[in-house]
């Protein structure tokens, strides 16, 4: 994709349909909002169908069904069928929990193009894998179904302090499951992951060691499985071109119909998110203040504004700028040119202090994503 010129509005490329915040899992690194449990007013089947039609008319091509766990919706097959008829390339982003043969057959029949299977609670899964117990058996069953129904096996594992030392085991597990692609994505610190940042943040040595192991495996396994390693951006000195630009390619719709210019836009203060129940998608995409807030380059502050690299990284991530620099329009503090880079350095220095991590874990235990925790954190935030 190319970077849009300032002032021009390109069609959305990717519609992310977050069908539900319900999920059977409790991942500590989930990017969903902390108060997800308070957001109950899910779009109906008919409303999702209208959203998909309008997005397709705007030019969206790729459609991701996500959540929460999208398999929690029993109209998933119907929505996939409609998406397929509309000409979308349909992706199901799932933990695999709830994917049995009846459902995968119905999804295939409805025209589902691709399934991305995630490892969820990797520590437990790894333990299971090593001892061959039931979670691994479940994954193996789902992986076999995915192959049996002629899907490429695309696996995703979120990496953090606790599983980075086992990246070799994770790769072995993916190979044992017959994966053709394995995305090793370091945790991005939003939502629940931000809440648990002190516990999840790896040390620089862990990241470098994991990269070395991945490189060794790449050499050894050749084309058997493609390994993608997404570096944690706190350890980079330039930010990621977040969402490939605000309002450029990505259009998310939350379970309650809130339209999202990025996955975590709910957390940005002062941004009034339009709702698909109240506004046509074309108007949301082209004219709403939320989708225009950080489009192009006009909104930028220094050092971004006069930076010769701004077209490459687009100033980085707005949510990270807000969380770390206190201003969503600031330069993403991951950038070494940011006057607030020291806040990122502080976090990674802390991660490397021997003993400090253990103390943090005791003082502030990991907060798992659960309905009860969501309710108490939602009250704090309100």
């Amino acid at each position, binding site marked *: 994709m190319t970077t849009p010129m300032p002032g021009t509005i390109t069609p959305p490329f990717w519609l992310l349909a977050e069908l539900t915040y319900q999920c059977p899992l409790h991942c500590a690194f989930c990017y969903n909002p902390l108060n997800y449990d308070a957001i109950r007013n899910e779009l109906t089947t008919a409303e999702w169908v209208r959203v998909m039609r309008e997005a397709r008319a705007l030019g969206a091509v790729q459609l991701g069904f996500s959540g929460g766990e999208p398999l929690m919706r029993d109209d998933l097959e119907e929505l996939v069928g409609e998406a397929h008829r509309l000409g979308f390339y349909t992706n199901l982003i799932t933990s695999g929990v709830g994917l049995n043969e009846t459902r995968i057959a119905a999804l295939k029949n409805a025209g589902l193009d691709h399934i991305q299977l995630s490892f969820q609670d990797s520590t437990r899964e790894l333990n299971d894998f090593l001892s061959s117990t039931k979670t691994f058996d479940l994954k193996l069953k789902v992986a076999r179904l995915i192959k049996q129904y*002629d899907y490429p096996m695309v696996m995703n594992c979120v990496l953090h302090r606790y599983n980075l030392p086992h990246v070799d085991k994770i790769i072995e597990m993916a190979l044992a499951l017959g994966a053709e692609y394995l995305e090793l994505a370091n945790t991005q610190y939003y939502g629940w992951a931000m809440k648990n940042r002190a516990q999840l943040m790896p040390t620089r040595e862990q990241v470098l060691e994991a990269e070395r192991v991945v490189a060794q495996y790449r050499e050894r396994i050749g084309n058997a499985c493609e390994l993608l390693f997404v570096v944690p951006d706190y350890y980079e000195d330039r930010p990621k071109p977040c969402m490939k630009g605000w309002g450029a390619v990505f259009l998310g719709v939350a379970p309650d119909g809130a339209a999202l210019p990025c996955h975590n836009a709910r957390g940005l203060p002062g941004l009034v998110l339009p709702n698909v129940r109240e506004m046509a998608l074309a108007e949301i995409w082209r004219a709403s203040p939320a989708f225009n807030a950080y489009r192009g380059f006009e909104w930028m502050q220094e050092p971004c504004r006069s930076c010769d690299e701004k077209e490459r990284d687009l100033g980085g991530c707005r949510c990270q700028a807000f969380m770390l620099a206190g201003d969503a329009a600031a330069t993403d503090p991951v950038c070494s040119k940011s006057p607030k880079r020291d806040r990122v350095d502080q976090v990674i220095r802390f991660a490397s202090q021997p003993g400090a991590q253990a103390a943090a874990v005791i003082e502030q235990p990991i907060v798992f994503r659960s309905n009860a925790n969501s309710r108490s954190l939602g009250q704090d935030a309100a």
Partner: protein
Amino acid sequence: MNQARFPDTPAINRRFRLQWEEAQGCHVLLYPEGMVKLNGSAGEILKCCDGKTPVDQIITDLETRFQASGLRADIEGLLAHAYQHKWIV
């Protein structure tokens, strides 16, 4: 020799989907979470890759349809590129 620069009767790899995109004004190849935009001639050539038509026939068909001659080098070049990127098998 030109060994296996492209298959004799090319077909679109099942891992990709070729379709016309009105909003892009071009043919595209879709794959998990991604898209390749094709220029006009690439789209026309790949549309002919049905797994049954031999390359020589594809060249003749396109030369007839576009009332042109000497397209062989361009078409073979595109097919080699497509094969290298696994768009065709």
